[in-house]
């Protein structure tokens, strides 16, 4: 089954990959500081991301959260970041850094991404056309 959702484009580009979904906003800074950079596995006991691989995935989350910016740029430079980012309401830094890291990013969809997308789903993010496609 395929589901298509339209959204706003924050940063252009087209990629596909496996989704990793988290439901509470988490500062990018914490994601960076608590990820094993060689394996991409999170070490965040008590959190839904604990033990999950976030490197090279399509990140799906509700909205951004604070902390120091420029993290996506560093993620990209180290080659341990997401393939793309989709969320409901972005934090300023996330868009700025996605643009500067040249990482596809979309937000504000015509469907609830947190309900429709599960971790492990295959997602195509076409941030040139403003459409994501889920394959279930």
């Amino acid at each position, binding site marked *: 089954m395929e589901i298509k959702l339209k959204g706003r484009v924050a940063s252009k580009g087209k990629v596909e990959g496996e989704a990793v979904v988290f439901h509470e*906003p988490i500062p990018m800074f*914490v994601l960076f500081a608590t990820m094993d950079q060689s394996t991409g596995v999170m070490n965040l006991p008590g959190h839904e991301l604990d033990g999950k691989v976030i490197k090279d995935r399509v990140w799906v989350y509700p909205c951004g959260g604070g902390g120091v910016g420029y993290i996506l740029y560093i993620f990209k430079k180290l080659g341990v970041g997401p393939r793309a980012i989709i969320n409901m309401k972005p934090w300023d830094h996330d868009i700025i850094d996605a643009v500067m890291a040249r990482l596809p990013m979309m937000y504000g969809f015509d469907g609830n991404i947190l309900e429709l997308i599960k971790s492990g789903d295959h997602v195509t993010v076409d941030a040139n056309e403003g459409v994501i496609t889920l394959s279930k």
Partner: protein
Amino acid sequence: MTMKLRDDEKRMLGGEQGPTIQKAMQYLVDIGEGNGAEEMVDISRAHILTVWGAPHWLPEVVRELTEGEKVRVPTTTHSKPVCLQHAKRMGLSESVIEETSKYISDMGQLFSDIGAIPSYTCLPDLWHHLKLGDHVAFTDTLVVPLVNAWFGARTNMESPLSAVICAITGKTPKYGMHLAENRAGEALVEVAPELEAEKFDSADYGALSYWAGKLRVNGVSVLPVYSGLSPKFSLTNAKNMCLSLTWNSRADMFHVVGVTPEAPTIEAAFGGREVKSEARFVFGKKELKGAYEELTSATEKKVDVVCIGCPHCTLEEITELAKLLNGRKVHKDTQLWIGMSAAAREIADRMGLIEVIEQAGASIMTDSCVSFHSIFSLLPRVVATNAAALYQLPTLTGKHVTMWYGTAADCINAAVNGRWEV
């Protein structure tokens, strides 16, 4: 959507002012379009970052972005990652001190080359004289909410990189906080009369703001409007509410009804929009206690470090600390770190406050961050603080640090007794 650029902006984008400005303008256009901006706005001021915890690339990346250019608006610089004067006593190894010293010196050279103001503080208000409606480009989660909320100047949460390209072009895309409609409140936080807010300590304000940062309406964080706070609410109180708000929220500002410039009334703070029932919250005794509990992660009573001045102390706070420390001595097994800008220190020195604080055995950390997590990662400690801003330290340091949270008086008592006894 395509942004409408003015002639000078088109020329910058076309390369007339050289490749650095051309590249910077292209980034600004892309950021603007990603955020739905229709045009650019001229900025009058900027604030750029010094501290960076990841691999030390900031000088290299900023140098690439600014190659051959200078800032076109007055641009202040953030706190340094560590106070080298106290680094040894803090317990940092020779190699870390050497590496950090090189980093600070590289950043200093870079700031001098691009013509930035070496203010080195997370409280750069003194150097900006901001006023209501000014468009500026500031970075940092402490500074941005303060600029928007307290001064009513308008800045988005620029990233450390975008703030630099704004500074060298004098432009930023006009979206988000630059537009009046996005500055309206999204949730009303009524501070219950039972709390007697007029007696609030900075730690109480930090706890309130931390709690508000976790509020969600329809699953999304909100721009809070506080009612019921004291009319005496000051810049010192406001700055202690900034980082603890933004850690868990995308809010770039807050309003205090009857105090901050865009919130003379609740109606004004919400831009004339109705406050729906799901966006009304009450902060009472239970919520305050809960926030203190969440901000506390320590169980060990013996305190290694007491950390005050995140964000940097105002003169008002330095005066209070000198009163609390007068004639007392910091415990031999505990360190007391107090962060402030060089400017605040100079004036406090003339007032005799620095002498009192130093005689008590405190380490005054000038121009630098007292809570830089990369430094704390190297120093497993029990920390006591009145700064809600520090609450992520246990997570960021892999639980190397645990934290007691309380008022300035509680913290100074802990420094003197060497133990947390509240």
